[in-house]
C-alpha cells in the first residue's frame, strides 16, 4: 500500500530506490573485474530504508552497519564519494581510511559506521542522550540486522534507552527469512530463542511493531509514529521490518544471480524470467512500490523508464569517477589518528 504522501514525494522516493538499486548493481559489476574487498549490498531492502529515512530531518543522526550503502544514498550522500571510498581512493568520503564497512558522512547525519555486530547500538543511544541533555529536538536511529539481537550490547542499549526515555528508534531489518545457514522459514531462528523478535522488547515497556518491509505504507506509518514519539519525549521505539534476503546476497560475496533489475517487470509480468519469478513478482519491495504507483496512476511506464535511465547513467558516472580517482599518498596513513 502507498504511504499517505503527495505524489511528487512518492515519485522522489521511487527515484531514490532506483538510484540505490543501480548503485549496488554497478558495484557488483565493478567487483567482477576489480579487487575491491568484501562488501554488502542493500538490494531488496530499498522499500524499507527509503520511506523510513525520508522522515528524518537535518540534525537527526543514523548509525548503520556493514549493509549501509542504501541508507547513505537515502539521506542524500554522494554515490561518487561512496564508490571512491569503497575503492579506497583519496576522493572517498573517509579519504580511503574506512572503506565500505565504515562509510561515513557526518554532514548527512552518519557520524560513523561500525562493523562490529551490535557495536553501534549503545552509540546511537548516546547521541539520543546528548540531544535530551542539550534540549535539541532531534532523533537518533539505530539501523541493524536481526543478528545484533544476539549480542549483549543490544540488551544493555534497550534497557538504558527505556530508562532514560531517550529519543532513539531501533529499526531492525530482519532479512533472515530464507537466510543462509538457517533452515528457511523456521522460527525460532536457530540462533535466537525468542519466538518473535518483538518479544525481546516487551519487558522494557517500549512500543514495538513488526511489519512487512516491502509495505511502504506500513514502514512510513510506523516510522512516523516512532519519530513523533521520540520528538515529543515519549521515548524509544522498536520496529522490525521483515524482508526476504535477495538471492544474490546468499553467497559470501554478492553476485547478480537474479540478473539486473528490469523496471518493465512491473508492468509486463511476462518478461519476468521463470528462474527467479518468486523474487521479482512477490519479494522485491522496489518493484512492489513501482506497481502500486502505476496502479494509482501516479506514474507512467515511460516516466519510470526515464527515471531508471537517469539512475543508471548517474551510477555509471559514479563508478567511473571512483575508478579514475587517485589513491591516497601512503603517508596519509599517519594522519587523523588524533583530532
Amino acid at each position, binding site marked *: 500500500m502507498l504511504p499517505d504522501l503527495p505524489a511528487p514525494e512518492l515519485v522522489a522516493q521511487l527515484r531514490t530506490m532506483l538510484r540505490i538499486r543501480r548503485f549496488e548493481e554497478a558495484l557488483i559489476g565493478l567487483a567482477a573485474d576489480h*579487487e*575491491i*574487498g*568484501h562488501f554488502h549490498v542493500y538490494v531488496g531492502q530499498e522499500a524499507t530504508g527509503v520511506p523510513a529515512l525520508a522522515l528524518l530531518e537535518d540534525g537527526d543522526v543514523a548509525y548503520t552497519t556493514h549493509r549501509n550503502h542504501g541508507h547513505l544514498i537515502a539521506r542524500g550522500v554522494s554515490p561518487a564519494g561512496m564508490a571512491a*571510498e569503497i575503492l*579506497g*581512493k583519496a576522493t*572517498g568520503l*573517509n579519504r*580511503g*581510511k*574506512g*572503506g565500505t*564497512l*565504515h562509510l561515513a558522512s557526518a554532514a548527512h547525519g552518519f557520524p560513523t559506521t*561500525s*562493523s*562490529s*555486530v*551490535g557495536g553501534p547500538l549503545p552509540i546511537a543511544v548516546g547521541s539520543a542522550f546528548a540531544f535530551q541533555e542539550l534540549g535539541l529536538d532531534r532523533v537518533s536511529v539505530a539501523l541493524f540486522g536481526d*543478528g*545484533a539481537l*544476539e*549480542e*549483549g550490547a543490544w540488551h544493555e542499549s534497550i534497557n538504558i534507552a527505556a530508562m532514560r526515555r531517550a529519543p532513539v528508534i531501533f529499526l531492525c531489518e530482519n532479512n533472515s527469512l530464507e537466510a*543462509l*545457514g538457517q533452515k528457511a522459514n523456521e522460527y525460532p531462528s*536457530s*540462533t*535466537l530463542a525468542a519466538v518473535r523478535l518483538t518479544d525481546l522488547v516487551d519487558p522494557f515497556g517500549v512500543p514495538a511493531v513488526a511489519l512487512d518491509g516491502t509495505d511502504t505504507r506500513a514502514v512510513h506509518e510506523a516510522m512516523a509514529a516512532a519519530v513523533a514519539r521520540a520528538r515529543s519525549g515519549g521515548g524509544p521505539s522498536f520496529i522490525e521490518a521483515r524482508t526476504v534476503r535477495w538471492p544474490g546476497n546468499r553467497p*559470501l560475496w554478492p553476485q547478480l544471480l537474479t540478473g539486473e533489475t528490469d523496471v518493465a517487470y512491473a508492468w509486463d509480468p511476462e518478461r519476468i524470467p521463470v528462474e527467479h519469478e518468486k523474487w521479482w513478482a512477490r519479494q522485491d519491495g522496489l518493484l512492489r512500490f513501482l506497481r502500486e504507483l502505476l496502479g494509482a496512476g501516479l506514474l507512467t511506464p515511460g516516466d519510470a523508464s526515464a527515471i531508471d535511465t537517469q539512475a543508471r547513467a548517474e551510477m555509471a558516472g559514479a563508478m567511473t569517477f571512483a575508478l579514475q580517482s587517485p*589513491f*591516497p599518498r*601512503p*603517508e*596519509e*596513513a*599517519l594522519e587523523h*589518528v588524533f583530532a
Partner: protein
Amino acid sequence: MSTLRFIDAIRNGLDIEMRRDPSVVVLGEDVTYGGPFGATKGLAEAHGSRIRDTPISEATVVGLAVGAAVSGLRPVVEIMYIDFITLAMDQLVNHGAKLRYMTNGLLRAPMVIRAQGGARGSMGAHHSQSLEAWFGHLPGMTVVAPSTPADAQGLLQAAIRSDDPVLYLEHRGLYWQKGEVPDEDDRVVVPIGKAIVRRPGSDLTIVSWSHMMGAALDAADGLAGDGIEAEVIDLRSLLPFDMDTLLASVGRTGRLVVAHEAVTRGGMGAEIAAQVQERAWAELAAPVARVGAPFVPPPFAPELERAFVRDADAIIAAARHVLDTPARGGTPTPSPEPVEA
C-alpha cells in the same frame, strides 16, 4: 609426508585430536557450515554434535567454553576475526586465564581460542588488527602463532592437549599457502615454547612469527646478495617464548632485529627487546631494532594497507642500521624508526 594448505592443516589437526579425545568440542559462528574460510568444513559430518554453531555472542560463548573446560571438556572456540575477541576480554582476562591460580590448582581450564587476523584484503579497522601483545601481558595465558602448515597442525594439537587456555593465532594471508605435513604415523606434536631456526646465519639475527616470517626470509635472501648472512628464527610460540634459542643466536651474531605485523608501540617486540637487552647486554654490539606497523588503526585503502604492513625492505633497512652501528662508543646513526610521540 603430504602437501596441505595451511587451512587444511588446521582442519586436520582438529580432526586428529577429536578422534583421539572424545572431550574435544568445537564452538563458533557457522562452524558446522565450515566458517568463512572453511577451517571446519566437513568436521560436522564426522563428529556430529561435537561441532556446534553458536549465536553471535562472543562474550558468553568464550565464558561458556571456560565453564565447559573447568567441567571436563576441551573446547576449541573459533573467533572469526581477532578484532572481536575484545567483546570476550572479561571472560578471558578475569576468568579463563586466572581460574587455576585463584583456586590454587583446584580448577584448570584446558581450552583453545582460534582467532584469525592481520591486515590483508582491505577489510578496514575492525577486521585487520594484530592484537597478540595484549595477551603477552596476561599471566596464565599461552599464545602460539604458526607460520607453516606443519606447525599449524602440530601447534594446534599441542594447544588442544595443553591443560591451560591457549590463544592460537592464525593469519588469513597464510591460509592458502601449501607445505609439507607429516602423515599419520610419523606425526610429531610441535612443543609449545620452542622456537626454530629457519635459516642459519652469523652476521645478525632476525626473529619473527606468523605471516611476517615470509618477509623475514625474503629480507635474509636480500641481505645475502650483499654477503650478509642473517639468521632467521621463527618464534612459533609468543608466550612462553624460547629465550634460550634467542640468546644462543644473539650470542653468536651480537645483533638482533625483531619484526612483527602489529603496531610497534607496546608490541611483543618491546618485550623481546627489553628481555634480550637485560640478559645479553654484554653480547649486544648494537641496540635491538624493532620493525612493526606505524601507530595507526589499520587503514582500508590497498595503498595505505601496504604502507601499514612492514615488508622485507623495512627489515633490510633495520638490519643495515643495526649492522652500521659501530661497536660501542661510536656515534650512533639515527634509527630509521621515527621517535613516536
